[in-house]
């Protein structure tokens, strides 16, 4: 397919998005990620029954926490797509990348850079 998508997206593979804990999402921000999205299987299509539905709830909770901490709720998102939807994957990556670029770098990254300087 040779689809193009932004190179600054770092992929962390998990067996199922049900493995993604709230703590993992927050830790990514602590380490300076500007945004995090979770890409799960299509709803109703989870190989482990409900993993992607649990992931969505955790993403929603992460949004609340990020809003309360001043990071902003829009920096985390949940998407659903199947392994056969390469075109949609590239589209999501471009869409999320654009969203984060519009929001600008995470304030955590700024703080880390300031401390290192």
């Amino acid at each position, binding site marked *: 397919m040779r689809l193009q998508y932004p190179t600054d997206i770092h992929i962390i593979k998990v067996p199922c998005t049900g493995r993604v804990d709230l*703590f993992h999402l*927050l830790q990514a921000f*602590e380490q300076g990620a500007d945004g995090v999205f979770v890409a799960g299987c299509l709803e109703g299509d989870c190989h482990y029954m409900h993993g992607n539905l649990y992931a969505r709830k955790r993403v929603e909770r992460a949004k609340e926490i990020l809003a*309360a*901490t001043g990071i902003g709720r829009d920096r985390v998102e949940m998407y659903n797509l199947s392994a056969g939807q390469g075109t949609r994957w590239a589209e999501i990556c471009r869409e999320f990348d654009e969203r984060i670029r519009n929001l600008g770098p995470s304030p955590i990254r700024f*703080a880390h850079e300031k401390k290192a300087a």
Partner: protein
Amino acid sequence: MIKATPKPLEEIINYVKDFNKILVAGCDGCVTVCEAGGMKEAKVLGSALRLYFTQAGKDHEVVETTVTRQCDKEYLAELKDMVENADAVVSIACGCGIQYLTEMYNDKIVFPGVDTHFMGINADRGIFEERCAGCGQCVLASTGGICPIARCSKRMLNGPCGGSEAGKCEISKDTPCGWHLIYERLEKLGQVDRFTQPVDPKNWRTSRDGGPRVIIREDLRKAEPQHGSAHS
């Protein structure tokens, strides 16, 4: 077990925003089961507080830990160094654990990170229901194993009241009438004659009406040293 829910993050941030070194202390007991104050929740709260302090440009040191039970001083003693090193502690144990931690480390500011609600059961994933009000004098033997104190909104001993309709309590159509449940259960057991005689008033001094309660079990107390024994 005791059921609690995490306090809103905004409230906790408001408590600790002027401190630098914060200890988030969880408990491996009841609050771990209801996913309000175990290690996982301590890590999430710790992470959230670090994100807040970092984005606000404030110096901070947030550490998380848990102990087996915050309602036992032997386990709380394990926190000594961490508590001493902190400016403030956020305890996410139940109200008992938070208070005992405060008693043990009296010169330290301790904030609650959860709201403690009741003694209940795990009805389903994420659903906790109250079953016991800790009244100190169990009446389950005469009520078919269903507690009128915890499950009747009015804590009546001779129910149901006029607010019971189609098996539901007048406070909400989602709340089963405790006395309706008791009647159905006693009917199954062939014990509805219990309803022919009113039950005497309960001694509420064993409940909260008697003030803060203490249980002293002499059979469990430490033995006093015996004078004149072989080892003395």
